[in-house]
């Protein structure tokens, strides 16, 4: 593997020999870098049909992550309304965002079954940390998120007593102090 520093616009290979990977683009059979970083040549996956080596630029300083369709995000619930919950996206994948992004979980996207019987207030509470998937870029205001999967939903919530609750089923969480149970759309965490 060879490494060298490149800047946007530098020619990093020919499209006949290489395939453009991350931080690179092709124009007129020439591959250019689109980021500042180190040029790397990665061998293609053995099962791929295209056996050209991939040339990519790994940024020394990439911009902050932005949510994209299909990415799994961690978000904090800010407001629960009758038909939707407003959230702030905190992490995209495993990376924390640098700027805040607003998202909404609509009533029909909370769970996969009986989607017309969902009560938003029995699913989320302001302050909950949820894991959700980005359904679409949404409208001008917010990303549309979904928790309609077993592994998606509330991952951390505080009870009325101010203690972090423990999940006891996929719809309930219990406060270790008062023993009170609260309704949530709980995420299945781990295995």
């Amino acid at each position, binding site marked *: 593997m060879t490494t060298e520093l490149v800047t946007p616009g530098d020619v990093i290979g020919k499209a006949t020999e290489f395939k453009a990977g991350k931080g690179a683009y092709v124009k007129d059979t020439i591959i*250019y870098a689109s980021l500042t970083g180190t040029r790397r040549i990665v061998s293609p996956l053995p099962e791929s049909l295209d056996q050209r080596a991939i040339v990519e630029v790994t940024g020394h300083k990439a911009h902050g992550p932005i949510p994209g369709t299909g990415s799994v995000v961690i978000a904090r619930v800010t407001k629960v309304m009758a038909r939707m919950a407003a959230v702030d996206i905190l992490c995209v994948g495993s990376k924390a965002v640098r700027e805040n992004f607003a998202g909404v979980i609509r009533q029909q996207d909370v769970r996969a079954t009986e989607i017309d019987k969902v009560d938003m207030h029995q699913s989320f509470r302001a302050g909950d940390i949820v894991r959700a998937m980005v359904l679409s870029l949404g409208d001008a205001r917010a990303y549309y998120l979904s928790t309609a999967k077993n592994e998606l939903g509330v991952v951390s919530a505080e009870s009325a007593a101010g203690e972090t609750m423990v999940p006891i089923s996929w719809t309930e969480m219990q406060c270790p102090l008062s023993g009170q149970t609260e309704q949530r759309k709980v995420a299945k965490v781990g295995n």
Partner: protein
Amino acid sequence: MAAKPGAATPTYSPKLVGSSRLPIFKDSDLDWSRPDGRGFHQCRPALLQTGAVSSASGSAYAEFGNTKVIVSVFGPRESKKAMVFSDVGRLNCNVSYTTFASPTIGQGTDHKEYSSMLHKALEGVIMMETFPKTTVDVFALVLESGGSDLSVVISCASLALADAGIMMYDLITAVSVSCIGKSLMIDPVTEEEGCEDGSFMMTCMPSRYEITQLTVTGEWTTPNINEAMQLCLDACSKLGEIMRDCLKQAASASEE
């Protein structure tokens, strides 16, 4: 922000390539010279630094002679709520002057015309589709106005964008030329801009050899435009080299 002591500031001057006719005057037998004693085809020394503003995603500081500019790039971040949905990214540019930027007493104001010209120069080079729905903000602040402000702002902005890790097709460099009488002066200072007959500014992608913006004002003859174009293209590619060196230096310094 002061220049690093002892750091050599690289200068660059374009070479007229393929010019069939000789310059009308040789630099030596002109009866007047430029205010800062430069040759007519010699650019001011260019000092470039990245990472000038720590709170921004990316930033750059440029000092071309007396023109001092700082550009910060923020984002990609959420577009304003009032904006309509767009599946490609947005670019928001703003050029402003400090109150002490020019010797005449004025207020530090936003420069609307420069802001839109900066936007036009940059939008062709940024891969907008890589940050859908979000906005990249480019804020340029002219600390001291010493001539050719816009071209310095544009070059500095592209450096800041590269520092922020925004995907770009190429770097952008901008060079301006003034026409006074029969002579062409590259990279004019404020005094020269004040008495010019025509101004010419070109922004181009140096390694792609493509022009993204061309502004011509005032009185020009066709051969002069040709010569100015060649001068600018060559100066742009030389400035591009300086900018690449600056980025590479910053990248290798951060790795250590």
